[in-house]
């Protein structure tokens, strides 16, 4: 085995571990830019993972499963949005409760049912896959991975270039001012949460029907929290957020691949690395100046 192959293996593995995070991070990033701090992303991913496998098992189509996963993410985003940006229940409370609810519900349902395993098809791009080093990692993947090629630029464009995104940013920074300008603040936040739900759902569904092919209890195992850590680590910039996801994904890949290369590292340290890095990022680069000013703050017309 050559060093190039080793790198190629780790890269592949890192990409696969990054993809679910990256999908969800695109969503969480957009929601946070709109000021909607949403810790229910774990619930979205887990619910979607369950829904996608259940559907794939029932219909025999992994792609349908993927779609249903997205729908479930949307549903959770819709519920979260309405609870915290229509009824104005504290968004952290809503997030905690949804996480607990979805974990309980999926664990319950998986106990009383059994599903077959299903996976979406793999795409292998001719010629490109033969590029040394990066060819195999990048061009032999389950097809939803390539959705990232659309979703990342689209998310960036939506936030930075579209009118909707301009309004989202306004809502995330100074909701009162946005309101008098005629922007429906809570509506925009609910919409942002829908986008977040759809993408986190896609991430979770990809994990289930793309990556693993089956569902087991608490299968997202805290990936939603890693996504939140990535957005913080990325200081609310899309590029750096995705970099964070890639970093966390690669770190995991290294941890899982290094023993095969004859090296071992302290596993607790590696598991905790994303959280420590996010905390460090916040400590070192005074992120408070980059954080959307109204992040996590409810909006009610008339209050200052």
């Amino acid at each position, binding site marked *: 085995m050559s060093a190039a192959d080793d790198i190629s293996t780790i890269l592949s593995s890192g990409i696969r571990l990054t993809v679910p995070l990256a999908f969800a991070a695109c969503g969480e990033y957009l929601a946070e830019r709109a000021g909607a701090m949403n810790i229910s992303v774990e619930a979205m991913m887990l619910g979607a993972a369950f829904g996608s496998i259940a559907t794939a098992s029932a219909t025999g189509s992994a792609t349908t499963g993927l779609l249903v996963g997205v729908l479930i993410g949307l549903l959770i985003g819709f519920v979260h949005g309405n609870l915290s940006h229509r009824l104005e229940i504290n968004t952290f*409370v809503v997030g905690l*409760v949804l996480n607990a609810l979805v974990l309980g519900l999926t664990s319950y349902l998986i106990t009383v049912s059994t599903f077959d395993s299903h996976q979406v098809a793999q795409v292998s791009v001719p010629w490109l896959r033969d590029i040394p080093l990066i060819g195999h990692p990048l061009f032999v993947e389950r097809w939803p991975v390539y959705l990232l090629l659309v979703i990342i630029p689209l998310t960036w464009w939506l936030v930075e270039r579209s009118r909707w995104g301009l309004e989202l940013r306004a809502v995330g920074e100074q909701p009162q001012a946005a309101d008098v300008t005629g922007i429906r603040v809570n509506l925009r936040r609910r919409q942002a949460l829908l986008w977040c739900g759809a993408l986190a759902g896609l991430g979770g569904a990809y994990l289930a029907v793309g990556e693993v092919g089956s569902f087991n209890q608490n299968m997202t195992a805290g990936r939603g929290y890693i996504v939140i850590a990535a957005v913080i680590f990325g200081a609310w910039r899309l590029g750096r957020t995705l970099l964070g996801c890639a970093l966390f994904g690669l770190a995991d890949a290294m941890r899982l691949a290094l023993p095969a290369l004859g090296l071992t590292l302290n596993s*607790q340290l590696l598991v905790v690395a994303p959280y420590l890095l996010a905390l460090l990022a916040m400590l070192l680069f005074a992120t408070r100046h980059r954080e959307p000013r109204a992040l996590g703050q409810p909006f009610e017309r008339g209050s200052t």
Partner: protein
Amino acid sequence: MSVSREELAPNAFGSRLLALTRPGPAAWQNTVATAVGVVVALLLSSALIAATGGSPAASVQALFQGSVADGTAWTTTLLYTAPLLLVAVGACVSARSGVFNIGQEGQVLVGALFAAWVGLRLAVTGPLLLVAMLLTAALAAGAWAGLSSLMYRFRGVNIVVSTLLMTFVAQQLVAFAVNTPWLLQESRVGDAVVSPQSNPLPVSGRLGSFGEYPDLQVNGGLLLALVGAVVVAVVVARTRWGFRLTMLGLNPLAAKHAGVRVNALGGAALAISGAFAGLAGAVLLASPVGVNRLQPGIAMNIGWDGLLVALVARNRPLLAVPVALLFGVLRSGGGFLAATGVPPFLVDVVKALLVLAFVAPPVVTAVIRRRRAGARTARAERRPAPVAEEVAL
């Protein structure tokens, strides 16, 4: 100046109590909405059971049997209630000061970790050991939560986020401790397999209890929690410190303006909330009947649930007592669900739905009231305006 109410009522405190019992229209609506919410939550849960082939009635029966049917069941319920209440009381303190700590799960773990270390390594004997354990747990978890406060103070790190992230750090810290022989991993006997857990605590490091199991046995942790709830309730409502805390929570700027050391007080509130969570960790570890070992799973989601208890109790320490009991009932009752074929995860679903049922009503009634006003406005728009006499300009 109008005549104030206290001038009429010599006993101002009495009149305040009276005012509490006289429900305003909002309180009445809230009660109804909460009742409706609870019913909806229970109906949804029953529907879930029925849809998956279980029997809702049998599940309720099992929950009842497992939690309050007899002394034994009560003992288990109270065993869970104690740490839940401790966490919730702490959460009340920080929430009162306007700081939202959601890292209790980690703080429980840190408390248990340090209590275990003291209990197993400190060559102290007798009841002193227990005291040392509880104190260390409170101090360590308080300091752990205090870290978040420092990060906020000096680098502006959002407290909700940092307490959340620190939870995962705490989990790995405990995992490291119980996997590391020179730290807390259990001793190897012969060539037996060792588990990721500590040795059991010596007997002197366990909490006492009242009553003889299998009859009702009240664990010492519950007493600790009840005392904590009462003390916190009194301190918050009656002392100068509590006055400042409330002021800080309601308007930090005004508090600072009034000479409150906001960072110190907010940090103290966060640390106190962490300390209570840490105590909960020590209580879990030193439970009079229990495993008495530090294990990675020792927190058993008590931290998360305790936070929910405080939310349902709307951050009132005394109200947290019955709520913690309810959550304890659900936990101990959940142990009986298996017999009905219903997965115990049902309890988590019920809990989450109940929390929503308690948290949503005040908000929902407020919104409905606002909507009603809005609806009236919408209808009025269709009505032609009374034509005022033409303004000659």
